[in-house]
């Protein structure tokens, strides 16, 4: 069966990484009809929005996208292409699985948890003002409906994937109103899932717990800003942004992306690690129902890393394309 997927090649090292991932998917005999859509610096240079409306509409129509890393231009009026996609497509659930990979040495053995980050509100609503010439004011928006849908997504995921616990992360001891609403909603939704253990934790304590008792956690669900920070902390525990996958789900569309930046200083050097986007692509395969292909690629990736074939960020010398070819050679069937 052929799947239509919108493809954003990205900026900087994005096109190299995307090409590497395309090659592995082709070798895994996954039949994907790639529909290339524009976004990123090229659009800005051509005088278009960083994510043109046609791109948003096409992803909305097709329902699935794979995105290479993009650069957020620095300067007044510039917007993040990633945040634009999340907001305009209402991709409310940022899902970041974090797990140990063989051959990727970290102090965090047997790491296996999933972070659900709310993607559309909180301080990322970006409602900001200068209230006086010397006082700035940023509005933190937390809604019951926004909280409910991300919390429900986390519990549904836990139920479907036989995860034992879901932990709600907040700072309601200080932000008693905004985070308090999130916490109340968490406790209300949790009652609907009696088979799943749940508790809540304050975000700073959770950071400490993550690096000391990471094996106690299965699914974490949290607000946008805390999720942004915790998911990068967890990516570091996994071995770095070069190996950390990400997915953004909405009600009727999803975009899969590596969580790292576009690393423009390495552009064209065939150097950067394609693992993060490759693992993001396996999340996409799962979403498309291609579960065997997902397992096949994950197995091949782990076998490659186990053999010590790694890119520079993991202490190896493999190139982007060389690493992808090594993964492809490990595929079964």
């Amino acid at each position: 069966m052929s799947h239509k997927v919108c493809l954003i090649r990205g900026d900087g090292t994005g096109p190299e990484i995307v090409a590497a991932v395309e090659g592995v998917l082709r070798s895994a005999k996954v039949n994907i009809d790639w529909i290339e859509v524009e976004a990123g610096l090229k659009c800005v240079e051509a005088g278009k929005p960083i994510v043109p409306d046609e791109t948003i509409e096409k992803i909305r129509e097709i329902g699935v996208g794979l995105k290479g890393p993009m650069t957020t231009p620095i300067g007044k009026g510039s917007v993040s292409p990633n945040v634009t996609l999340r907001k305009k497509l209402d991709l409310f659930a940022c899902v970041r699985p974090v797990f140990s990979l063989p051959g990727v040495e970290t102090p965090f053995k047997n790491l296996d948890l999933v972070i659900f980050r709310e993607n559309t509100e909180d301080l990322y609503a970006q409602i900001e003002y200068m209230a006086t010439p010397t006082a700035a004011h940023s509005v933190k928006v937390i809604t019951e409906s926004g909280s409910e849908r991300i919390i429900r997504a986390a519990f549904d995921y836990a139920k479907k994937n036989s995860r034992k616990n879901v932990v709600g992360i907040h700072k309601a001891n200080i932000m008693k109103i905004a985070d308090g609403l999130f916490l109340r909603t968490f406790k209300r939704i949790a009652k609907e899932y009696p088979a799943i253990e749940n508790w809540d934790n304050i975000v700073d304590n959770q950071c400490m717990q993550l690096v000391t008792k990471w094996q106690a956690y299965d699914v974490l669900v949290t607000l946008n800003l805390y999720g942004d920070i915790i998911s990068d902390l967890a990516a570091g525990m996994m071995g770095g942004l070069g190996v950390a996958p990400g997915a953004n789900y909405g009600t009727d569309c999803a975009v899969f992306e590596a969580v790292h930046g576009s690393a423009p200083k390495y552009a064209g050097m065939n150097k950067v690690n394609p693992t993060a986007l490759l693992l993001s692509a396996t999340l996409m395969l799962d979403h498309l129902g291609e579960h065997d292909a997902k397992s096949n690629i994950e197995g091949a990736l782990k076998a490659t890393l186990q053999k010590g074939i790694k890119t520079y960020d993991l202490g190896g010398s493999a190139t982007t394309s060389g690493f992808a070819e090594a993964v492809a050679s490990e595929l079964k069937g």
Partner: protein
Amino acid sequence: MMTLHGVDIFLNLSELPKLPDKLGPFDLIFIASRGTRVYPVAANTHAGIDWPQCRYFSDETVTDVEIEQLVTQITELGLQWTKCQKLFKLDGENAFSQPY
């Protein structure tokens, strides 16, 4: 120098409010929800509307009294505002964010 140009009016509403495009010296620039535009062109048609942010703005400098009259007119439309934030320019530059 700080100059006054408009106001963001946040409404106690979970739907798109019907508002005049022009009130006094102000134009209705957009309505947004959670920082994402829902009017005049919705950037996103899927998320529900919660606590809509309605921006009335004038390129010319306005007075506090004109802002107060505008807010009174919104109330007279039967809408309940829960927060109003004045919009200033600092040395000619907008001192407020734009929605997606």
